[in-house]
């Protein structure tokens, strides 16, 4: 019950801020669209051999693949960012101390905040993916159930990872800077994640599976870009994809590890007297 109350408060707050700063919201989306288009053009088409780039122009899936990866990367970037830079910002302003003194507990408050922020990110990202895909002549294969399941799993995967990093930030303030590198890594991984990565030697493969975004990106691309078709053009449900099983395992593992680490670090931070301050 407490969680829904906090989530309602967060929803109202986000809506008010979006409405009050509507011009910034809209221009933000327009700028995002423009930047993506420039990136798509720069990344895919501006190769040394222009002809080679131009030949790729006839393959809109390449652009769509990049855009989707980019968006998933941005999503991972922002979710983990809420636990690092977001947490530091709240600590600096004093809002974190108020959250720490909320009877719902810090974990519930963060969960609600990140969930609300994620929903708004998913909606705006979804619009962006469609617009960019449409602009470059690509298309996405929308399949509601798998997409929703995958987004939920991706969210909890990143959430667990974010909780772990956030917990460390509560005690070790310098982790926030290291987390920027981690976020960049996750971002890059989401852009380049594809099934071929899983053909690497097992240590590389294992580390790819451990990272919270690889399997999520592969599964989402399998549904949205490939339309759940295998190389032979036959239907291959994402729920039978090996990355989906890895995603399930890492989701449970990261959520459990993240929450536990966060709780331990919160208590440690209270003992040190640094909880809520930066």
């Amino acid at each position, binding site marked *: 019950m*407490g969680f829904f*109350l*906090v989530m*309602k*408060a967060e929803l*109202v*707050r986000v809506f*008010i*801020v979006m409405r*009050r*700063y509507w011009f910034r919201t809209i221009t933000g989306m327009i700028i995002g669209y423009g930047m993506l288009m420039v990136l798509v053009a720069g990344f895919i088409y501006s190769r040394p051999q222009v002809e080679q780039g131009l030949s790729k122009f006839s393959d809109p899936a390449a652009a769509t693949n990049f855009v989707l990866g980019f968006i998933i990367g941005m999503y991972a970037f922002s979710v983990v960012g809420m636990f690092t830079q977001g947490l530091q910002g709240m600590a600096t*302003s*004093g*809002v974190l*101390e*108020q*959250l*720490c*003194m*909320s*009877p*719902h*507990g810090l974990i519930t*408050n963060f969960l609600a905040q990140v969930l609300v922020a994620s929903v708004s990110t998913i909606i705006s990202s979804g619009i962006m993916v469609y617009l960019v895909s449409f602009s470059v002549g690509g298309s996405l294969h929308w399949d509601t159930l798998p997409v929703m399941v995958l987004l939920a799993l991706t969210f909890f995967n990143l959430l667990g990872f974010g909780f772990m990093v956030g917990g460390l930030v509560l*005690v*070790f*303030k*310098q982790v926030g800077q290291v987390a920027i590198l981690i976020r960049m890594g996750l971002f890059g991984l989401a852009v380049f994640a594809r099934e071929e990565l899983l053909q690497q030697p097992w240590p590389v493969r294992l580390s790819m599976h451990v990272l919270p975004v690889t399997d999520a990106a592969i599964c989402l691309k399998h549904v949205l870009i490939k339309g759940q078709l295998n190389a032979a053009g036959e239907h291959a449900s994402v729920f039978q994809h090996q990355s989906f099983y890895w995603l399930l395992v890492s989701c449970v593992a990261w959520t459990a590890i993240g929450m536990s680490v966060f709780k331990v670090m919160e*208590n440690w931070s*209270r*003992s*040190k*007297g*640094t*909880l*809520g301050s930066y």
Partner: protein
Amino acid sequence: MTDPLVEMRGVRKQFVTRHVLALDEETRKRRFYKRNLVDAAMDVSFAIQPGEIFGLLGPNGAGKTTTVKMISGLVKPDAGQVFVAGMDVERKRKQILRQVGVVLEGTRTSLWPLTPLENLMYYGNLKNVRGAVLHDRAHDLLDFIGLQDKKNIQVRRLSRGQKQKLAICIALIADPRVLLLDEPTTGLDVQSSRAIKDRIIEMTHGQGRAVLVTTHDMHVAQELCDRVGIINKGRLVACKPMSELLELFSEHVFVFKLDAPAGTGPLRGLPGVLSAEEEAAGGENSLVVSLATDEAERSAGFYAVMRALEGMGRRVLAVQQRQQNLESVFLRITGQPLDADGDAGPEDPEQE
């Protein structure tokens, strides 16, 4: 006597501070890494009754904020126990947070893009208050604190005093029985400071809350508090009702206002008179006489002075007992002025 709403029993807290490239005072050499232990609370014990304003007075870094944070569960004590409404803060933290409202010093607390009313609705939900109760309480609080006409203005446009008033409203939104105010009037102009002090007194005495106010401002403590604890380097060195504290350290100084100047020589040898000085201010002729602490001697000294002045042909226009102020009390207890650094503060605890 009713049960206290806040009680600290033998609470200890020690912080670690780390300094990189610090100067070693013993060897006078620069060390790469230095670790210091700072006592923020040493066997601190006190209780606050319902309807009482308890002031925690001490210099910067004396351990005041740490005490507030330990009561609100933000900092865990190393030893001892903290109780709020009879519940142990360590064991029932979540239940206790429903009973406690906190305003910490120097933080923004409120969300600046929102209005005061929206802030109260937001924090109300965070503190489990909802529906019509939340709506009514938010409006009542804005009325009470004097922000009703600002309720739809973004917080970032409010003055510092108005933001502080809003912070108090936020702390009160869950109708807590205990209110912890860390330096509530610091940096405010006289008018805002006065308004906040009045509201604090009203909500404590009128509504039966227990209020803890930390301050290093003597005037705030003297005007607000029913009882005062003086904390220095983590130790609670005195804890008494305000009047008792002032009385305890009273020097029994009397000011005799006269019609004409009088010499002090004949007064100095009188029984019960410790000192006598002339004071001419604002065109008045005053004689400042310090009398003995013992009541009988003091009484004898007082009448001896009156007779001596009569003998000198002076007419006594008025006699006033000079009030002792908290500043000199603090100085006498701790041996240092209040604006000195307490050197015990956990303001910058361990940063790793």
